């Protein structure tokens, strides 16, 4: 509180810098907490031999070794797991896109007898308790002869009521003029759906693709239930299975786990806006 001419600008700079001196450390500590376990796993994946259990722990491995990332492909059939994951995710997302848009479109844009009944019957399943869902689905998949088959893993989630609801809302908002002009041009119904209406709801389709991509890529227990051979496992179940049998050599598991999450993180970093808007927007309704 001195009267010197310098005190005023000094206070000003303190007010500008002060909060930053508190906020940035807080932001960094939170980031370390949120990324810490993965960073520690990454660090472990680059270690070999005694360095893994070194005391005090090496935060940055010395030397950094890529050996685990190469060896892990020999230790476990990692390419098979990667292929299985891509196959399962591709099939799941693809089927959802086709099934959900085809189901949502008539419910939103076409007048036909029974429309409201079908729509309310579908929506009611979102509220009704599905206590034995997994059990009955398992029995049905078994009766269909799809046990130990990737189709059996994907089929029960090949259509989602939530997606239908979301896509129907999007189809409803398209102005009628588009449809009328196409109809005057003599376009067939399916062509109107496929080449005019579908491109109009790209943001909703993106949300559906992101949700389903995440759900299938990360799914753990349903593949474990349906698949009998470990060779058919996608990454998540395979890693969960191997972490028990390979626990004596954790760096391999660490390398495998890092490899399994990298595609998801890359896609998230590319499509971050769509991810966050889709996931937050979907619950805000």
């Amino acid at each position: 509180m001195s009267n010197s001419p310098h005190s005023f600008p000094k206070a000003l700079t303190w007010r500008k810098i002060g909060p930053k001196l508190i906020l940035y450390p807080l932001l960094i500590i939170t980031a370390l907490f949120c990324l810490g376990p993965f960073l520690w796993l990454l660090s472990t994946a680059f270690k070999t031999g005694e360095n893994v259990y070194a005391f005090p722990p090496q935060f940055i491995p010395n030397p950094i070794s890529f050996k685990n990332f190469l060896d892990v492909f020999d230790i476990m059939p990692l390419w098979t797991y990667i292929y299985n994951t891509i196959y399962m995710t591709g099939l799941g997302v693809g089927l959802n896109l086709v099934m959900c848009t085809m189901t949502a479109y008539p419910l939103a844009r076409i007048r036909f007898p029974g429309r409201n009944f079908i729509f309310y019957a579908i929506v009611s399943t979102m509220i009704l308790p599905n206590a034995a869902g997994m059990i009955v689905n398992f029995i049905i998949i078994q009766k269909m002869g799809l046990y130990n088959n990737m189709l059996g893993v994907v089929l029960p989630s090949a259509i989602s009521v939530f997606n239908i609801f979301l896509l129907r809302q999007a189809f409803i908002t398209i102005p009628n003029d588009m449809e009328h002009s196409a109809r005057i041009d003599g376009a067939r119904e399916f062509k109107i759906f496929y080449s005019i209406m579908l491109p109009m709801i790209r943001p909703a389709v993106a949300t559906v693709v992101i949700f389903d991509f995440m759900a299938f890529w990360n799914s753990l227990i349903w593949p474990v239930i349906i698949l009998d051979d470990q060779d058919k496992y996608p990454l998540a179940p395979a890693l969960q299975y191997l972490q028990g049998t390979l626990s004596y050599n954790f760096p391999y598991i660490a390398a495998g786990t890092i490899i399994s999450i990298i595609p998801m993180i890359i896609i998230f970093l590319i499509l971050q806006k769509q991810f966050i808007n889709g996931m937050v927007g979907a619950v805000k309704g």
Partner: protein
Amino acid sequence: MAVSKEQARQTRFAYTMLAPGIILLLLFTFIPIVYGLPLAFTNYSAVDTTKWVGFKNFIRAFEDPDFWISLKNSILYVIVVPIIQLLSILMAILVNNKLRFVNFFRISYFIPVVTSMTAAAIAWKWVFEEDGILNYFLTTLGITDAPISFMADMNLALYGVMCVTIWKGLGYYMMIYLAGLQSIPSELQEAARIDGAGRWKVIWHITIPLLMPFVMLCSLLSVMGAIRVFDEIYVMHGPKGDPASATLTTSIYTYKISFQDYNFGYGAAVGLVVSLLIMVFTLLLFKYTRKGGMNYYE
């Protein structure tokens, strides 16, 4: 005449489009809902011939100490809900500041949300090791004398899993709260600041009350997630909820009897009881909210 022909054509088109989806929904959504109820009153399993057994499955559950342990653990698990809400609100307030690089931090907080629970649980298991990094910090900082076994100690195992659940959910709820913060006018907070209220006072008395609708929505999502907790326990403590049923929750219990012992009838009965439990919790939460009709995605 032309109109009705056109109508018939449209109807045919609509049903053709709907058919594949409806068949899948009938098979994997409607039938399970309808068939799940009678299933709970049978002894349907991998070995026996299926018979109607009345309430036997329910009595068996109520007489099984493991069922009660799983119920207790699942209810106890709901304590993650207020912790997640408080931490994610604070994080949202933190990243709501206009700072350089703030978007980088938002994105990094969201990364646990998009990665698989399997990977997260494996990473955390490694952190929790007896000679792991967390124990190194705790002993070096002098917080504990001897390493703590977060995985094997019966009294700690469940709380260890809770840490993973909380950690993985923070980024998601933070983003919802951030959207909430950005939708409330900043004049109120500014006015309170001018009137001399401290930063924390403003957060506690103005920001959080204004966020209440979002808190309710997030709590609801979080309660449903907490009661269904499965993946993190399965990866960290296996299908039996080790050590000694310390991490046995209703989902793990249902999984064990359904897909390890293949007692489908019994599994359906336990599932039914759990569904009722979830409904009670949801209704309790709805009692405190006026807004309904929200949709969610697991």
